[in-house]
């Protein structure tokens, strides 16, 4: 492996890890606070991507500047979180928090299946591609390797901002503190006047927005087609499980491990590349079943 391929693998890994991390962050937030493993998270990712492509395609066709794609990504993510995440929590999940975990998993899986069909109904099965946002930011050359600014700088920057921002939000803002307290002890939180129902709705919508944002940010870098949600839920679950469920900072490190593992494998041993994330997860879980940073006892976020 020469310097050029090394750098390419490194950059691929970083940009890929950033995307996976953003989606995994939402998944681990929802799990950490609500103890629900949301399989439908993958669909929210996919719908975030579809919505962005449609919205950006439509607005740019009206003659708007490509840079407008960025606010539209955020709009798409928020629409997905509020219009899909909100009702899913309010109408469905709210009824099953005290039910067995298997049932919860089945319900979120059912939501996933329904949303997969909704995507096919709305967007069909042909792939979409809309990369104007990617091109708008241009390229950067590092040691002779040219890479897009979007993937090498913007995506990691967004991921890092979300990581720091979410941590600050949970520990320092009033709303975040109410979420953190509810995570630790739901009854104790309610007995000092914290509305746990509202906390759960807000958390789920926030997590769903992160899934949608992951999809929105991924959309210029890949073809949007059926099945992308399933791939992403499995991958981000691998990240979350490797880190330890509910571990926000851990998810960043796990995403880097898995992203790097996958991208280096593509250059070194391409046949196994798709397996690498799961190999890493299995290896970690064999040694530490609670994940790299998880602890079996405390409920924390």
């Amino acid at each position, binding site marked *: 492996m020469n310097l050029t391929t090394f750098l390419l693998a490194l950059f691929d890994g970083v940009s890929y890890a950033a995307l996976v991390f953003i989606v995994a962050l939402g998944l681990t937030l929802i799990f950490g606070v609500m103890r629900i493993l949301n399989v439908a998270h993958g669909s929210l990712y996919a719908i975030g991507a579809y919505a962005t492509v449609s919205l950006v395609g439509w607005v740019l066709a009206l003659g708007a500047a490509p840079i407008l794609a960025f606010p539209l990504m955020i709009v798409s993510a928020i629409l997905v979180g509020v219009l899909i995440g909100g009702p899913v929590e309010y109408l469905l999940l709210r009824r099953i928090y005290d039910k067995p975990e298997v049932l919860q998993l089945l319900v979120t899986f059912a939501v996933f299946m329904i949303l997969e069909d909704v995507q096919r109904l709305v967007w069909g099965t042909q792939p979409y591609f809309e990369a104007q946002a990617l091109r708008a930011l241009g390229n950067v050359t590092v040691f002779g390797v040219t890479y897009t600014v979007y993937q090498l700088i913007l995506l990691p920057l967004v991921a890092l901002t979300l990581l720091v921002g979410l941590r600050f939000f949970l520990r320092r803002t009033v709303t975040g503190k*109410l979420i953190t307290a509810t995570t*630790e*002890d739901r009854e104790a939180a309610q*007995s000092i006047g*914290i509305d746990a129902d509202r906390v759960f709705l807000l958390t789920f919508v926030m997590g769903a927005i992160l899934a949608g944002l992951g999809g929105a940010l991924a959309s210029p870098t890949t073809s949007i087609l059926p099945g992308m949600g399933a791939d992403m839920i499995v991958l981000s679950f691998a990240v979350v499980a490797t880190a330890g469920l509910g571990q926000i900072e851990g998810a960043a490190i796990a995403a880097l491990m898995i992203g790097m593992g996958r991208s280096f494998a593509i250059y070194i041993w391409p046949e196994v590349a798709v397996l690498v994330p799961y190999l890493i997860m299995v290896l970690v879980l064999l040694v530490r079943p609670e994940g790299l940073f998880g602890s079996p006892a405390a409920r924390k976020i």
Partner: protein
Amino acid sequence: MMLSFKDVSASIGIIPILRGLDVEIPQSQTVAMIGRNGAGKTTFLRTIMGFTRTTGEIRFDGKRIDTLHPPKRPGLGIGYAPEDRRLFSAFTVEENILLPAQAAGLDQAETQKRLDRAYEILPELREMAGRPGGQVSGGQGKMVALARALMLGRKLVLLDEPFQGLAPALAQRYSEALRALRDSDRSVTLIITESNPALLRGFADRTLVIERGEIAEGAPQTEGESA
């Protein structure tokens, strides 16, 4: 009546725990609820806070609260310090105390006023204000839980076995704090549960005895009885 129960039964899951309670507690009364382990003391307080399945009618300040969403109840002026203190370990002692005021959306000035009052009643908490909630001893934790309950508990304060497990010196301090609380606001109503009646002797205006989920009036206590 500050707090009244009319034919109240409560169950946890499908298990009935409290049966047909009829109790009236007037304002500014200090009530000791005595009963051995498993008698239903904790369930009684949790029923007031809304954490059991309840039938019958509970009124607070004239308003029905048994049908009120549990997190809305503290805002009516009810503070609750649970048996096992249950501080939030992600936050410091002071952040723990402040949380109820933040959940209720009180403004800065009112929050500060209430915090100052809690510190006046429990001055030792000032020194540990910055300590993580998970790193205080059991006894100190009970004091923090009391301070936290006082933030919203302007009318009714519920304390679940506050003296249990306290070293004698701390127990002494805790009852001094309770006296300071009553002196600072004569109108506040207190319900304190205990399995050991000796710990509350001379402190309560009235004793209720709870046994297998049923409540009976206990022998009246007077200040003179205290040793």
